[in-house]
């Protein structure tokens, strides 16, 4: 560790830390564009200049490593003047189209110009323009406006160092250089939208999100990607219960600063719930019913649990699965299966630049396993259903694609089926009772990643209708069947019990979940790569 003084504050940082990160530790933000903690240092935007005692020239905070006893000023007459000048240079050719720019609200040029810039410009000449690249689809998800580009090359470095697809490059040189792909071909890779995440200005924006919402009107909820077992940390941007986007949230151990396009664009699926109230079959149709009626009907069907088969889901949180196990396995003695499957490979690079790969499309298969639930692949699920004779309880209609097949629905059509779902699928249409499930945004829970880390997804909104998160539906059922413990009114309460009961989760607390980049479960060795 070395000790440095930044603006009079002394901080201890590991040797090799750059001035910019050291300042961060002291709570001081040094403005920067080209620097990104996940990318190679290039020192080219020149906005992070600081004054270091004993150095005749200003130094870039990103490319200067701390030395013991260094005395750094991030604000001084020289620094402020120079920074103002660099911002003026950057704004000289930047179109001031902020009102119609989709980056507004999260634009570092705007923010730093406000914080550190001049209140006027000396520029009266024509600004640089790239007429062919002012509003151009760079790829299926990315819109390019080269006029706004500040040439920080973060997007290029992302494709070189993180995605390793090497598909973006700077062409030409000097004042007229621009970002492009080989021969202008579409910019397309499994992580393509991260290029827009790293873009500090509105030069690259995500097509799916453009002009759908002003970011300062969005609520941000920290969550975990539901798209696969890797468990990338995300922030859900939403407003009035409507989800507008997923963006990656930093977690060095799992996803670094990145997420894949597949996961990112699942955001839309969180909207548009079709099942807003409990439904009970009456003849050919499903009719809305109050929750108590639906639960009474459910109690009648399940009876003492004899012959009941329960299909749980690796999409459910540890808490929901814990209650499912306690109720169905331990209390009622029913058979429970968590379907598993092999999907397309997803991959992400963590903050240490190691790849994490997964072909498990569910976020909590490991959680289910560690809780002691049986998992089974497609054929096991098929057998489980076909050989069933009694009631079938489906805790999540999206637990496995097989549940959407008409064939399976035919096989169990004469048995009473209870399904929890947000949207209709063949199995809900054939069910005796359908209970409305809250969306991922509306559900708080913890999930165990493929690398054995327990992570918490927060709830961002309450359902506006009668839908409930699965843990809550299971808690209601638990009370219905007189299960010991509870009543469970909060996921935290369930998690605390779970952590006390299940060895793998021993010692994990909500506080740790809030402060650590996912808490590793015991007995589990993280299998990175």
């Amino acid at each position, binding site marked *: 560790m070395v000790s440095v003084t930044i603006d009079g504050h002394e901080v201890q940082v590991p040797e090799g830390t750059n001035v910019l990160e050291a300042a961060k530790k002291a709570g001081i933000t040094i403005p920067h564009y080209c620097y990104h903690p996940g990318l190679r240092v290039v020192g080219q935007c020149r906005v992070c200049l600081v004054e270091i005692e004993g150095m005749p020239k200003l130094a870039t905070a990103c490319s200067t490593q701390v030395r013991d006893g260094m005395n750094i000023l991030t604000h001084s007459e020289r620094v402020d003047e120079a920074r103002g000048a660099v911002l003026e240079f950057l704004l000289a050719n930047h179109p001031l189209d902020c009102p119609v720019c989709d980056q507004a609200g999260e634009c570092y040029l705007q923010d730093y110009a406000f914080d550190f810039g001049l209140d006027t410009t000396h520029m009266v000449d024509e600004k640089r323009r790239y007429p062919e690249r002012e509003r151009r689809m760079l790829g299926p998800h990315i819109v390019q406006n080269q006029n706004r580009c500040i040439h920080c090359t973060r997007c290029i470095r992302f494709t070189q160092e993180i995605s390793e697809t090497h598909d973006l490059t*700077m062409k030409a040189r000097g004042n007229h250089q621009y970002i492009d792909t080989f021969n202008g071909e579409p910019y397309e890779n499994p992580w393509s939208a991260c290029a827009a995440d790293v873009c500090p200005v509105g030069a690259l924006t995500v097509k799916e999100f453009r002009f759908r919402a002003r970011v300062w009107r969005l609520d941000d909820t920290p969550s975990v990607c539901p798209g696969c077992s890797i468990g990338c940390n995300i922030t859900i941007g939403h407003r009035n219960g409507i989800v507008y986007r997923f963006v990656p949230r930093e977690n060095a151990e799992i996803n670094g600063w990145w997420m894949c396009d597949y996961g990112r664009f699942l955001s839309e699926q969180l909207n548009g719930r079709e099942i807003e109230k409990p439904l009970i079959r009456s003849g050919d149709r499903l009719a809305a019913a109050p929750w108590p009626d639906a639960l009474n009907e459910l109690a009648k069907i399940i009876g003492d649990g004899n012959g009941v088969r329960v299909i749980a889901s690796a999409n459910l949180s540890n808490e929901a699965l814990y209650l499912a196990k306690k109720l169905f396995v331990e209390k009622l003695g029913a058979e429970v299966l968590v379907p598993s499957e092999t999907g397309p490979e997803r991959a992400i690079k963590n903050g240490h630049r190691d790849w994490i790969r997964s072909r498990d499309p569910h976020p909590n298969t490991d959680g289910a396993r560690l809780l002691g639930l049986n998992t089974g692949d497609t054929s096991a699920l098929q057998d489980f259903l076909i050989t069933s004779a009694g009631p079938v309880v489906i805790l999540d209609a999206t637990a496995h694609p097989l549940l959407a097949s008409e064939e399976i629905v035919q096989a169990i059509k004469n048995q009473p089926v209870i399904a929890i779902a947000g949207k209709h699928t063949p199995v809900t249409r054939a069910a005796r009772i359908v209970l409305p499930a809250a969306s991922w945004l509306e559900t708080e829970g913890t999930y165990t990643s493929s690398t054995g880390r327990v992570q918490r997804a927060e709830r961002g909104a309450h359902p506006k209708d009668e839908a409930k998160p699965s843990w809550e539906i299971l808690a209601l059922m638990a009370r219905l069947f007189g299960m010991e413990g509870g009543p469970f009114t909060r996921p935290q309460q369930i998690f605390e019990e779970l952590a006390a009961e299940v060895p793998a989760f021993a010692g994990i607390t909500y506080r740790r979940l809030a402060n650590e980049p996912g808490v590793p479960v015991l007995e589990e060795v993280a299998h990175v790569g």
Partner: protein
Amino acid sequence: MSVAHTQPLTMAPPELLREVHFDDEMETKISELLKRYPTKQAALLPVLWLCQEKWGWLSSGVLKAIADRLDLSPAFVEGVTTFYTMYHTEPTGKYLVQVCTTLSCQLCGASGLVEHLKERFGIDFGETTPDGRFTLLGVQCLGACGEGPVVQINNDYYTRLTVETLDQILDELPE
């Protein structure tokens, strides 16, 4: 010097360069170049030169073939190619007439040459005559300031030029 000693360039037609494979002769040359450097990437500039000498210009098909051969991404290769002004990603005329427009040559009358050439060819900088014979380029300092004004035609320098000597050279250039 007033004797034209420059040979014309030949430009491979675009349809020939859509997809490119290196023949044995090119392969041998590339292998020789690779021996000079500890990394394959380092051979990029020499290989670009080699290809431009062979085909006259560097189509995207050529860049793709180079990228494949040197284990680089095509985007990277194109980024490098367009950084340097002497690589041509479009066909040029048979003669690249490159007039130095920087200070010392200008002090010695290069602007007169520029005007004359634009008039003689009927084209502006960056353009090619309709017959495909000449491409006129304004270039920056050629590093022969003591012998200005300087015009580089293809690879050859012609120095201490006047309108008359330049005309004579252009007239003498072979078909």
